[in-house]
């Protein structure tokens, strides 16, 4: 059988290529697994997302009911939906851990700049997946959280109102927004993500896995295949176990159907990964000098994101600055997310 396949698919050359790939072995090697875990969770999202697509209907009159149908009538529908929701959250967490591990291990150095850029773009896409998917069940919380989110876009100077109208597909959140977000979530984003993911993986393959610069050379290594691949598989199974526990013991709630004519419920807030910027914008005063506070806040975030993305250009010669910035970034995210949740 192998011989038959090998003759047609040149499996030996792939094996040969993989046998040359090595993974550095050191005390921080555990962080290498998070890129693979993010990939695994993305694959779960694709698989469960396709299953949900069979029953989901993207209209304001049917969206909520179709999700309710999936959860109550479809065999294992509750599990698929719950895994999809939990895996989305775990994927964001894994992607952030992967990004910070790259920062602290200084793996963004030459010649891996493009790997870093593609990774940052993938993180942005993962967040876009979260934002667009959050509205799809059309429940009260998701409806008003999306309203708050798109209102932020409206405050961008000059193009804000056009931008908000473009995102919403109208003046307010409605059927147009739902179909737009649905199209984005199931077609546009997966398409771009798949291409970018391939680029990212090819770049990792091309440049190999980076060892921290402070380690004494030569750094001990293990073969990627099968040694690291088997360990990665263990990590994937561990992730699957965590996902199973979360989905079975804490099934993702559906909540109350969105009513556009009702007033927003008290304490409305976005998903946990948007809490820190959300709370920061809440703290900024309405006006700073001659500018609107929200505009200043958004401009500040935009500058910080650009500076962070350009890390390979300013961080290589300043590893201590990078480590400090990484710690400060984590402290900011943790503190403001907790404050945003409880206030």
């Amino acid at each position, binding site marked *: 059988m192998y011989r038959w396949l090998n003759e047609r698919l040149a499996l030996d050359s792939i094996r040969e290529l993989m046998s040359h790939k090595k993974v550095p072995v050191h005390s921080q090697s555990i962080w290498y697994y998070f890129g693979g875990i993010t990939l695994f969770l993305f694959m779960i999202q694709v698989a469960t997302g396709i299953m949900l697509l069979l029953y989901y209907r993207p209209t304001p009159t049917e969206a909520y009911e179709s999700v*309710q149908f999936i959860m*109550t009538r479809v065999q294992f529908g509750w*599990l698929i939906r719950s895994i999809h929701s939990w895996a989305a959250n775990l994927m964001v967490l894994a992607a952030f851990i992967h990004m910070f591990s790259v920062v602290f291990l200084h793996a963004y150095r030459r010649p891996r700049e493009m790997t870093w850029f593609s990774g940052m773009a993938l993180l942005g896409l993962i967040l876009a997946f979260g934002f667009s998917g959050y509205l799809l069940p059309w429940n009260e919380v998701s409806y008003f959280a999306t309203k708050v989110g798109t209102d932020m876009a409206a405050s961008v100077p000059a193009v804000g109102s056009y931008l908000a109208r473009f995102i919403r597909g109208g003046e307010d959140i409605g059927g147009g927004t739902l179909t737009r977000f649905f199209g984005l979530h199931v077609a546009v984003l997966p398409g771009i993500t798949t291409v970018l993911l391939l680029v990212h993986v090819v770049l990792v393959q091309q440049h190999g896995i980076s060892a921290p610069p402070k380690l004494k050379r030569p750094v001990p290594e293990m073969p990627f295949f099968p040694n690291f691949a088997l360990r990665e598989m263990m990590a994937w199974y*561990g992730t699957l176990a965590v996902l199973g526990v979360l989905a079975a*013991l*804490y099934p993702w709630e*559906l909540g109350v159907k969105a009513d556009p004519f009702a007033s927003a419920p008290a304490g409305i807030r976005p998903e946990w990964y948007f809490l820190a910027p959300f709370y920061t914008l809440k703290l900024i005063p309405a006006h700073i000098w001659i500018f609107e506070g929200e505009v200043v806040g958004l401009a500040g975030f935009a500058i910080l994101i650009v500076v962070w993305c350009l890390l390979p250009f300013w961080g290589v010669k300043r590893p201590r600055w990078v480590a400090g910035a990484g710690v400060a970034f984590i402290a900011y995210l943790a503190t403001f997310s907790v404050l945003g949740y409880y206030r």
Partner: protein
Amino acid sequence: MKFTLAALLLALPALGTAEDVRVSHAKAELKCVDCHGSGAIAKIKRSEVTKTCARCHAEQLKQYTASVHWAKFSKGETAAATCLDCHGSHETRKAPTCESCHATLKEMYDKSPHAKAFERMQLGGCVGCHGNHEIAVTSSAMLAGDKSLCADCHPAGTGPSKMGALLQSKLDGLHTSLQKSAEILERARTVGMEVSDSLVKLQEANQTQVQARVAVHSLRVEDVDVPVKEGLQAAGQLYKEGEAALRERDKRRMGLVVSLSAILLTIVGLWLRIRKLENHS
């Protein structure tokens, strides 16, 4: 509040016609400004009505603030009755007007033997049992037992007293069944089961409880039996749905244990494979 017949009888001489009241406001030389204030005559806000009337009727306000009407009004249910809804505004009257909001209750009451008896004895209809300003939250305890209102006129062991106890048992039976269904559904909801459809059905089933309480006013068992039977049937079905949701929860947990065992075994297998591989090399 237990509104005794004696208290009602004492209050009766104070009741008068609408004409009497208009005269009494006129006699007291009440002018527009006394209620509406001087300066720009403003419409009195609904939320300010009780305060305005209480300038002269402090005692009635005290009774009203102990009532179910005030309990609802003060919580923002501004449709709940306040002074003007029973007494009118400029056409001030004293005649009880409960039926303007509680029409179905009045319909049931008119079918009951109480209607004629209360009229004959001049007990004043609804106020005969419920009082006027100080209308308490109703409960099945008003029908039998220590807090029974029936006992004021019907001694224990008499036919009407037994009827009160029978109606009470029907209402309580329905209440208990609905309560049990609500509890099991809430348990299922808190463990993450999707029971929102059942919770909507429970809200509908709770309406039968209201209908049964209304039907009690006809004092006819057959009238009460209709919503009670419907409610009990719905409650039974909802309880089964709650049980099914909890059984499904248990099944899921069992499935989780099996899956976790399989995953753990695979992880152990992978680990052994890695060890074997690395020991060889």
